[in-house]
């Protein structure tokens, strides 16, 4: 399930809900990304999406990852709109029979979200707003799974 939301979410509740009622899942991996303040250089993040397209594209990638890593289930929750430092921006949850597949799928999904999912990130700070491009590291990380 893919969810874009302009509301803060509670990571513990998301993990609890995702883990509930599973009799065959042996491993759940989770990643939680927070908005960084960068010592005052970033006062807010702003995330933009192309809502239906973004959800559909992330859904396609999640379906591919589900097959590739033999997942039982996966969930992506991504904030859009204005986000304050310290607030959760993204949460990825993966469920598999064993931990290696769950960890790798979670890692792969995050690498995809950082540089290939239709999302755009603007950082606001004392120096003014700036659009954040994917870093060389982000691009290399995503390419690891090609």
């Amino acid at each position: 399930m893919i969810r874009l939301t302009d509301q803060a979410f509670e990571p513990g509740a998301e993990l609890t809900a995702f883990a509930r009622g599973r009799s065959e899942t042996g491993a759940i991996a989770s990643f939680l990304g927070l908005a960084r303040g960068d010592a005052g250089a970033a006062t807010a993040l702003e995330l933009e999406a192309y809502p239906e397209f973004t959800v559909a594209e992330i859904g396609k990638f999640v379906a591919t990852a589900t097959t590739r890593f033999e997942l039982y289930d996966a969930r992506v929750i991504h904030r859009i709109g204005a986000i304050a430092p310290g607030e959760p921006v993204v949460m990825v949850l993966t469920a598999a029979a064993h931990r290696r597949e769950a960890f790798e799928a979670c890692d792969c999904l995050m690498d995809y979200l950082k540089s290939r999912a239709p999302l755009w990130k603007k950082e606001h700070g004392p120096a003014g707003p700036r659009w954040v491009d994917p870093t060389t590291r982000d691009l290399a990380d995503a390419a690891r799974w090609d």
Partner: protein
Amino acid sequence: MTVQVLLFGKLCDVAGWRARAVSPAPASLNALRLVLGKEDQALAAALAGPGISAVLNREIVRGDAPLAANDEVAFLPPMSGG
């Protein structure tokens, strides 16, 4: 006969708009790029920049494609989520 054009991320800041109808509908994506670029040189340069993707009716398009009335075209700059 119009096409709806959407811009995202830094492309909005360059153009000063997020969504607009272009009428009459250009025959192709490349023709649409020319129409937009003729009105705004900064946008023309931005659309020709590295890593710009085009999406036609919610499907990514590589290169050119024919356009029809009521199509929705989006131009996407390099992506960065997470």
